[in-house]
């Protein structure tokens, strides 16, 4: 099932399943870990951006790349990677725009993962 509103920037459940060796239980376990950790990282990015803390922003962008790669595939990963690598030389307005775009994509993926988990969680 790869139903997504925008396949370039959305959660890719089949991609994740492939990443965990086609083990559906493992996919759900990894999703739980993602939902536990990812919102906190996005908060740190928001905070660094608000404080114009480029060093902090770079560090936290680095920290979300593996999650974006696992859950959203290559395109959101590349966006965060580009921003991380070029952050020192970007003008403030460009940096802000690109970082906000990365945050929007990340939040969108997070929400889709949460929705997916709701649909697929095991009954108690």
């Amino acid at each position: 099932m790869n139903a997504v509103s925008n396949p370039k920037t959305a959660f890719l459940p089949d991609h994740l399943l492939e990443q965990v060796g086609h083990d559906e239980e493992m996919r759900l376990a990894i999703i739980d870990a993602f939902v536990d950790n990812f919102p906190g990282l996005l908060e740190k990015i928001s905070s660094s951006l608000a404080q114009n803390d480029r060093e902090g922003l770079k560090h936290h962008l680095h920290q979300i790349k593996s999650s974006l790669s696992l859950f959203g595939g290559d395109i959101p990963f590349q966006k965060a990677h580009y921003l991380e690598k070029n952050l020192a030389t970007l003008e403030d307005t460009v940096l802000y725009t690109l970082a906000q775009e990365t945050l929007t994509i990340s939040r969108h993926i997070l929400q889709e993962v949460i929705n997916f988990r709701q649909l697929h969680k095991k009954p108690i």
Partner: protein
Amino acid sequence: MKKLAFLVDDDPGYRQYVKTFLSGLGYELLAFEDGTQFMEKLHMNPDVIILDHQLGKDQEDGLELLRMVKREHPQIPVIYLSGQHDIAPVVQALKLGSIEYIEKNSGALVKLKAVIEELESKKKKKGLGGWF
């Protein structure tokens, strides 16, 4: 008895993914954000160590940790994690004795599983004589 793996990575999400993933392979994972606690626990003699190249700001990088591991515990196999197309540290890590490197992008967990299964296979073939 569960096998023991160590991971050093400053990404809390990735630490949790690897921990979850390796538990499915019968490993207990001790995950560290930086090298300090990691080095203090090395006496536990883990079955495998996974080191990320890029650790947090003001931290040593994975290559420094790899040098220390190989100096003090050369028998422990080390898998090195790198960024995408980050060739220079990978070459250095292999020269320093890392048995394998894995790019932390798509396919990393599956490749990690394959590397660990290969390690276990080699260990079985060698009996109790170690990995190699």
